[in-house]
């Protein structure tokens, strides 16, 4: 039996989809273990803690818990996650083109899809790990009372943030691979921080609305919020927001995969 026969005989979900995707994921995680990327990760972990330390030192009477939580939320599930994903998810295709590895991957069955989904998973794992560490350190440095439940809430928000936004950044990565970073920053600003704050139907399709709403819900802040701030959250139950983030991520990923399926890159060697 030739290798081809062997694969045909065993063209299960595992060999056709799962194995290549996990291969890409583990290969990408290996790439993220470079000295440069580890240094960036270290900065990502320390940066929110450094900000919280500086703020705590300027407030003599101690930091208000709600204010500290709001700041940590802005620094970690928002800033650190965004920056982490810009580094890990945006270059999904551009990196392969630059390294001359795209051709090797594009000629493998399901290689294109495995590349995108595997890189997505690696970006989510890497960024989540960095952001959760950053959240832990920031909470400890800020000396927030009852830190453990808060860390739990922040960890869930971090995972949802990376799941949703990595999928959002997958689109510029496949549509404009060589300008993915710039395009992703633009997408983040326009979609997450402009459309996300417009109190209309459009903000329902943003991750930032879901995360804010979950934070308000789980911190028990809904009653405390002024009326004008209530417009910036969605009062639906938490499970709706979680399902919405997963749904949004799935739709964006499917669209990105479909686009990548049809992408062609001219052989620059000859043109």
């Amino acid at each position, binding site marked *: 039996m*030739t*290798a*081809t026969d062997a*694969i*045909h005989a065993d*063209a299960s979900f*595992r*060999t*056709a989809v799962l*194995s*290549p995707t996990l*291969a*890409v994921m583990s*290969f990408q995680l*290996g*790439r993220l273990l*470079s000295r440069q990327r580890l240094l960036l990760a270290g900065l990502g972990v320390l940066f929110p803690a450094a900000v919280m330390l500086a703020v705590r030192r300027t407030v003599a009477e101690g930091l208000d818990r709600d204010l500290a939580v709001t700041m940590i939320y802005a620094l970690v599930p928002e800033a650190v996650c965004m920056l982490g994903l810009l580094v890990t998810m945006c270059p999904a295709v551009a990196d392969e083109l*630059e*390294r*001359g*590895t795209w*051709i*090797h*991957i*594009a*000629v*493998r*069955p*399901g*290689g*294109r899809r*495995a590349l995108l989904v595997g890189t997505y998973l690696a970006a989510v794992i890497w960024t989540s790990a960095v952001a959760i560490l950053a959240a832990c350190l920031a909470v400890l440095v800020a000396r927030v009372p009852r830190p453990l439940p808060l860390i739990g809430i922040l960890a869930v928000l971090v995972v949802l943030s990376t799941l949703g936004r990595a999928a959002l950044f997958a689109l510029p990565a496949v549509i404009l691979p060589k300008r993915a970073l710039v395009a992703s920053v633009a997408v983040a600003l326009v979609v997450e921080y402009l459309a996300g704050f417009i109190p209309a139907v459009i903000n329902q399709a943003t991750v930032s609305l879901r995360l804010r709403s979950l934070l308000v819900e789980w911190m028990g802040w809904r009653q405390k919020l002024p009326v004008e701030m209530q417009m910036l959250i969605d009062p639906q139950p938490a499970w709706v927001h979680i399902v919405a983030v997963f749904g949004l991520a799935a739709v964006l990923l499917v669209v990105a995969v479909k686009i990548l*399926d*049809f992408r*062609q*890159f*001219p*052989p620059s*060697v*000859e*043109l």
Partner: protein
Amino acid sequence: MLSLTHVTKVFGSVIGVNDVTVELGAGAHGLLGPNGAGKTTLLGLITGQLRPTMGQVRVFGEHPFANPRVLRRIGFCPAADLLERRATPREWVRYLVQLSGFRRDAAAERADRELDRVGLGEAMDRPLSTLSKGMRQRAKLAGAMAHAPDLLVLDEPFDGLDPVARHDLVGLVRRWAVSADTAEVPRTLIVASHLLHEVEALHAGLAVILGGRLVASGTAGEIRDMVDAMPSEIRIRCDTPRRLAELVCSTDGAEGFRFEGDDLLVVATRQPRALAERIASVAVEERLAIEEVAAGDRSLEGIFGRLVRLHRGVGS
């Protein structure tokens, strides 16, 4: 096994491949053409990286573009150097085999075996960045062959290698080609190169591509006969080219004359030696001042140029 029917591929205003029709069966085939001829584009179409703008590409009876059923049976070694530097050859080849649908353990076994076969057994755990170009080329070849494809496509596989590495890799590919002939499932090898002797060494049938067009196909002998059957050119620089033309026009073998500028005569002939001797004797007898006599371009580029003229019906 593989057929292209009136295939054209256009990138914006650049024509990569122009109306190519060819059928390739099992066995070894060489795709010959100078840099920029369209070889990589043609291979991109065959290996499912590119969709034709016009025409039809069929590999194993199906469209290859992003088609997993076809891609599973193709092994491709691109021309571009591998810039993935941190991974080791073992990790890299295992990764590619996994992408071809093999489980991790089976992929590891195949990667090790193939790396041994291409002579990288000792170096398979060194980062790619520490390997020579020849060794990286071997790693690329191992990646293309480790999943035992039915169609192996190699783009300039010997480019930039030293003579020893080149000899080794030609031997390696030739062994694959020989085993392809005896394999249970018919297998095909396509090697693109701009060097005729590399393709000849694989005992492959030849297809010559130039300017995106397929200008000739056949065995190396047939193509050489075709080229030899075409008149070659002798270029003579002298102060009286028209007078010289009058004197040699009755010579056997002089088939055509062309003047370039005031001092250059170009004579087409199938008997260049006899003609050159006649020119020399005429020049002495008539006391003509000849500055330069140059034979036509015998380089591969020159042969390609002549094939193009033959293809267009000029000088045939």
